[in-house]
Each structure stands twice: as structure tokens, then as C-alpha cells.
């Protein structure tokens, strides 16, 4: 029975399943907003806590989760869940208020109060509590120190610091120039651009969900799934050679995973036409990769234009693609900037699923000049 449960959890935490479950779960929670209630939060945290505590008896789970440097990741799990719930919960309560007669809570409490004592005492209390937490944490748990640095002996797995593990996970799906340079830059630029892209005047200065659904869904998908989930799974579920290991699995250094990845060019030339890849020179390389280039080009440059068309230009079944109302509301510059950033963000899950479904390695591959997408 316990073994069955463990097998199930190991299976469910595999990259494909976990990512899919988490994404669908999040989308479902946005659809059925009742789940952000106090009761479901209590149930959820109780289950999570029981799962965590009970799992500590499993030696493989304990080995990884109880590593001193991994304690913060447990913190990330609980804190991020809690505060996401807290924000959504307040937002939905406010939505109920404003849907009825009332005003949002933040509006009701508009009167001015003295900062001393109302705020200063809160801050004082926060400092005291935080100091105690830090002191206790530091007394109980020694900071780890491994063997002295040895440039000749690289440990397996070699992991970046935990907060960059989302980027390291991206390396599975993208080359380093994208995962390590372009995407981090786009994340920073994209975050900074948010206030200039988002022209929705509503929901400024209070929690709400209904009044800014699209913004919140996109941001939380990026933050929770593409960032936090990848950090957590990168820490707990990625072992030697960056192979996946379930939470109850032993990190076996000798485990080999077959890598049979193929490029779009292989699909087209070898599998479809039954011919060898074109070789020799620049133009042969372009010819080899034409389909991939077309795909990437269409995704980045044609799709945004198509998406700006009105709904009636789309065939039934594809109408959801139309973002015409955003184009109207935001104007061309904001629309193209926003949609491009969004598509860049979505390229990660898209590439993930392409890999899982077709073992796809590169859509465009010019290994000669390190230009692979």
C-alpha cells in the first residue's frame, strides 16, 4: 500500500506529469474561484504538512529535503502557497463586495490613522519575530561546509544556487545562450515593462481578481509554474546528470537515460523525405533548416499580427486566438511588445511539450555558429 503510494508520487512528480498537473490545477483554480476559501486552504495545508511529515520517514526523501541548504526551498513551497492564497482570497472577497452593494475593503478603510503607533508597532513586532526566527534557525542548524574547493573534481550533480535552478532547468530544453542569457534578460526587461504594457486602470491599490484576470493569470503562471515550480523541482527532483528522480527515489549516479533527440530538420529531411540532410556551405545549412526558421519566424513575427485580427476572421474553434480587443485597447506598440514578451514566455512550455511528445531537440539548429533554438 505504502509502496503503491510512493510509486504514484514518484510518477506524479516526473517533469511531464508534474508540470501538467500544476498548470491544469492552477487554471482550474482560476476558473473555480471558490477554491480560494479558508476551508480549502486549511485542508490543503493540512494535507501538505501531513505529506511532508510522513515522507520524512523515507530515507531518500529525508536525505534531500533535510539538507540544510534545502530548508529554504521547503520555505518557498509553504510561503509561496500561503501568500498566493492570501492574495487571491482577499481579491475574491473584494470582488464579492464590489459585485454587491459594498466597496472593496481597502476603500472602506480610507481614513487616515497615526503611523505611531499603528504602523511602527507592527514593524517593531515584525523585527522582533524575525530576529527570533533567524536566531533559532541559526542556533539549531549549522551552515553547511563541504570539502575544500577542488577544481579537478566536479561533483555530480553540479547545481547552480537554488534561486537559479529554474534557469538551469531551462538548459534541458534550450541552449545556454537562450536559457542563460536571453531569457534572463527578457525576464528582467519583461518585469520592468509590465506597468507600461498593462493599461488596465482597474485594480490599482486593492486586491482583486475579477477586474484584472488576464494580468493575474499570466503573472502567476510565470511566477508559480515557470519560476517557483522549476526551482523546487530543480532542487528536490533533479539528481546526478540532471536526471529526474522521484522524491522517494535514491539518487543513483549510474542511472543512464537514453537521449534520442531529433531536430526539426531530421523530421523533415530524413523522416519525411527519406533523404540525407543537405550539407556543404551556408546555403545548404539554410536549406536544411528552412522549416524550423519558418516555424520560429511564424511564431514570433506572424502570430502576433494574426492574433490582432478580429474574431470573425478566425474559423470556429480558433476564435480564442483573437486578441483584437487588446489590440484596440492597448494600441499597436503596447500590444506588440506585450504579445511578443508573452510568446517568448510561452516558448518554454511549448518547447517542453515538444520535447516530451516528439523528443524534439532543436527547431532551428546551426551548431556551426552555436545558434540553436
Amino acid at each position, binding site marked *: 500500500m505504502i509502496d503503491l503510494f510512493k510509486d504514484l508520487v514518484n510518477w506524479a512528480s516526473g517533469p511531464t506529469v508534474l508540470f501538467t498537473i500544476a498548470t491544469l490545477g492552477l487554471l482550474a483554480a482560476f476558473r473555480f474561484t471558490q477554491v480560494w476559501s479558508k476551508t480549502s486552504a486549511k485542508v490543503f495545508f493540512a494535507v501538505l504538512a501531513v505529506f511532508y511529515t510522513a515522507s520524512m520517514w523515507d530515507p531518500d526523501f529525508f536525505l534531500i529535503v533535510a539538507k540544510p541548504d534545502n530548508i*529554504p526551498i521547503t520555505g518557498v513551497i509553504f*510561503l509561496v502557497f500561503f*501568500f498566493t492564497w*492570501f*492574495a*487571491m482570497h482577499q481579491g475574491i472577497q473584494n470582488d464579492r463586495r464590489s459585485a454587491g452593494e459594498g466597496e472593496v475593503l*481597502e*476603500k*472602506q*478603510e*480610507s*481614513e*487616515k*490613522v*497615526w*503611523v*505611531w503607533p499603528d*504602523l511602527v508597532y*507592527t514593524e517593531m513586532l*515584525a523585527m522582533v519575530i*524575525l530576529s527570533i526566527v*533567524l536566531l533559532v*534557525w*541559526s*542556533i539549531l542548524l549549522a*551552515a553547511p*561546509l*563541504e*570539502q575544500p*574547493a577542488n577544481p579537478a573534481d*566536479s561533483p555530480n550533480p553540479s*547545481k*547552480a*544556487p537554488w*534561486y*537559479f535552478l529554474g534557469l538551469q532547468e531551462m538548459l534541458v530544453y534550450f*541552449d*545556454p*545562450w537562450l*536559457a*542563460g*542569457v*536571453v531569457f534572463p534578460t527578457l525576464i*528582467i526587461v519583461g518585469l*520592468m515593462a*509590465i*506597468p*507600461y504594457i*498593462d493599461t488596465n486602470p482597474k*485594480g*490599482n*491599490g*486593492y*486586491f*482583486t481578481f475579477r477586474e484584472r484576470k488576464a494580468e493575474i493569470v499570466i503573472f502567476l503562471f510565470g*511566477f508559480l509554474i515557470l519560476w*517557483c515550480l522549476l526551482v523546487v523541482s530543480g532542487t528536490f527532483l533533479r539528481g546526478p546528470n540532471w536526471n529526474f528522480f522521484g522524491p522517494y527515489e535514491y539518487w543513483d549516479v549510474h542511472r543512464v537515460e537514453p537521449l534520442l533527440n531529433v531536430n526539426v530538420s531530421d523530421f523533415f529531411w530524413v523522416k519525411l523525405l527519406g533523404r540525407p540532410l543537405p550539407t556543404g556551405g551556408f546555403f545548404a545549412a539554410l536549406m536544411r533548416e528552412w522549416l524550423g526558421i519558418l516555424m520560429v519566424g511564424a511564431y514570433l513575427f506572424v502570430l502576433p499580427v494574426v492574433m490582432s485580427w478580429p474574431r470573425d476572421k478566425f474559423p470556429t474553434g480558433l476564435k480564442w486566438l483573437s486578441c483584437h480587443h487588446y489590440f484596440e485597447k492597448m494600441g499597436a506598440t503596447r500590444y506588440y511588445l506585450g504579445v511578443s514578451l508573452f510568446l517568448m514566455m510561452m516558448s518554454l512550455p511549448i518547447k517542453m511539450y515538444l520535447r516530451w511528445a516528439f523528443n524534439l531537440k532543436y527547431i532551428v539548429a*546551426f551548431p556551426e*555558429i*552555436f545558434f540553436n533554438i
Partner: protein
Amino acid sequence: MLNRILAPLSAAWKEATDSQVWTSIFRHGKPVSNRNRALVMMSNVFLHLHPVKSRKAGIKLRYTWCMGGITFFLFLVLTFTGLLLMFYYRPTVEYAYADIVDLQEHVPLGIMRELHRWGAHAMVITVWLHMLRVFMTGSYKPPREFNWGIGVVLLVLTLLLSFTGYLLPWDQLAIWAIAVGSNMARATPLLGTEGPLSASLTLGDISLINAGNDARFALLGARSVGQPTLLRFYVLHCVGLPLVAAFLMAVHFWRVRKDGGISGPM
């Protein structure tokens, strides 16, 4: 009975607060009257970061989660404990590791390293949560767009501070994490040896970008993680990045006030 103890105590307290020393430091009475509540906020350099009065909703814990404040407090804790660590730590390949061992084993009450490390982990998390709450309350919307931008830079600085500090213990974890992290710089387009298009940067037959001058080299100060890297990261970690972060925090707090205080519904 209780009175016998308390009476002299409160007399002594009154004596102390009436003394010339006390009144020279605190130029107003206890903040129990509204006048004094205003005075205390205005005459104290730390408290004057706050306004005298504020909208009730904005100072509620459920609204801000005090997350920005906690992040700032952690920054202060890290500055202080970091300073103490600097008394003992020498950033050389020879001594760094041994100094860390000493810090834990021979320095009395040696939990400075723990406070610094766990505090740093915590700060990374609280910055994320602060960003989450600012997003979820829509507080980046006008007029706070610019302060959100400052915040993003602070987020990056926090991560960089943590990243540069990661190397300093000079153990296996440290150098290999930095090796993995900095390997990416090799792939910088145009500027990394293994980056797209950088092979096209040539002068006649000589290629301009090589392992001795590419983006990774600039980061590490060497072809691989070594003494120059340690020194570079140390200087950035202890001086460069904290200075920039402190400077931007000042701007950040100033702008919170100038943008109309904590956000609220119009």
C-alpha cells in the same frame, strides 16, 4: 508589595527621562498626544521615512504583509553580520576555506555565518513575496511604474549579492555552483566564445572573442573559477553591490512617499 518595587522604578524612569541627556536626544514627550506623535515621526531620522499619518488600509499587515520592510530589515541584518564576518575572512584561495572553518569552530558564539547565510536565503524569498504582493495589489500601476522598475533592479541585485556570496566559503559547493552559473556567460551572443555569431567577430584572420577575453572571462577574471574570481566576487559582494543596493533602496523608499504613500483605491 508590587507597588514597593514599582514606585521607585517609575520614579527612576521619570528621573531619567527628565534628565538633560534624555531630553537632548528625544526633543519631545512620549508619543501619546497627537502633537507628539507627529513630532516623533518628524524628528527621528529613521522614523521620518514614514509619513505622520497614513491610510488605514495601507498600513494593515494583510495589505503589505510588511514584506518590503522585512526585506529591508534582512538587508540590515546581512550588512551587520557581513561586517563581522569581514573581520575574520580573507579572500584568498589559501585562507578562505580555513577562515570559514575557524569562524564556526573557534570564534566564540560563532553563529554569525549562520545568521548571514540563512538571512540571505530568507531575503531572496521575501523579495519574491514582496514583488508578488505589489503585483497582486496592482501597485505598479500609475503613478508607481518607475518604482516598480527600481524594485526589479533591487530584485536582480539581491540575487547577484547572493550569487557572489555563494563563492566565498570556497568549498566544493561554492566553486561548482559558480562554475555552472558562469558557464552560461560563455554562450552570450557576440560576446561569449560559444555564443551565437561571436565567431563572426574577426579582424582579418584573428577572431576577436576567445576564452581569454569573452564575457565569462570578464565575470571570472580568469579562464576558470580561481583566485581572481574570488577577489572579484568578494569586492562586489562586500562593497560594490551593497552600495548600489543601498543607494537604490533610498530611491525606492523616497519614491514610495513621493508617489503618494502606500497604494490604495482612488
